[in-house]
């Protein structure tokens, strides 16, 4: 409407994402991918991200909306939220497919192990959606998650560890951060619509 309204629109849009549910799901996806890599259950790592992306919206409707309220943003933002779910599913599925291909290359032929830096690639791939969330939601914490994933990838390469160590460690940190944010949100926002 006006420059003043756009400032309040940005603030309102940031408020929309303050519940921590997305953080928790993102962390769980990374953690489960790490676990599936470690336990060599590739199917779990492939399926879980899509399941999480599909669960986000119904969970948000049930947990967050009765507390934070319902809002429809105008024009482009509204379109962005609708396309966000599809983009999230496609991006996570694509990233994880690449990670699984890497895993199969990694474990399939011991004689031709890939170059050392490839060990950090799954974490770098997962840093891309974190950066995407940061730009889309205008929440700085997702940029920190991206940084954490990149640092974990660097440590993996330097130490010569397997990728699952970095995936599980960073996934655990992001899951805990998401859980804390969600718990604080649920404590501070009673379900007003449910009464």
């Amino acid at each position: 409407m006006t420059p003043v309204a756009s400032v309040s629109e940005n603030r309102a849009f940031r408020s929309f994402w303050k519940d921590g549910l997305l953080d928790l799901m993102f962390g769980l996806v990374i953690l489960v991918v790490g676990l599936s890599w470690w336990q060599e259950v590739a199917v779990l790592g492939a399926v879980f991200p899509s399941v999480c992306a599909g669960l986000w919206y119904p969970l948000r409707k049930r947990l967050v909306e009765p507390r934070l309220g319902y809002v429809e943003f105008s024009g482009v933002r509204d379109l962005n939220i609708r396309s966000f779910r599809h983009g999230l599913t496609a991006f996570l599925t694509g990233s994880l497919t690449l990670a699984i291909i890497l895993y199969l290359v990694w474990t399939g032929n011991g004689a031709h192990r890939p170059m050392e830096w490839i060990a950090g690639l799954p974490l770098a791939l997962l840093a891309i959606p974190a950066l995407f969330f940061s730009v889309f939601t205008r929440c700085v914490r997702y940029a920190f998650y991206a940084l954490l994933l990149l640092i974990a990838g660097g440590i993996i390469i330097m130490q010569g560890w397997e990728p699952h160590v970095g995936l599980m460690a960073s996934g655990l940190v992001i899951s805990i951060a998401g859980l804390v944010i969600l718990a604080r949100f649920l404590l501070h926002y009673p379900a007003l619509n449910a009464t």
Partner: protein
Amino acid sequence: MKGAVDHQKIDRLFHEPARLKTLVELAAVKKADFTWLLNQTGLTRGNLSVQMSRLAEAGVIRIIKRFQNNRPQTLYELTASGKAALLQYKRNMQHILNALPDG
């Protein structure tokens, strides 16, 4: 006097702080329900309810009642005339405040 603002033009409906806060929040979105506005404005339920009724009576906002997942849902949105009047209020206030010395 050139550039002077007729103070009678300041819309008193918008000038009340709680109503103005509510309108700014509503102008930032397309539609919102009572809970969203309650959280964004920090007003009490009673105060917000009174302000919304007053704004609806004046035709500044529109109340949309609908069912979602078999539950009643009340949404609020600014009307076109309400949006125009709010912008006019902003221009008038800016005009007055621009004359205020900084120091």
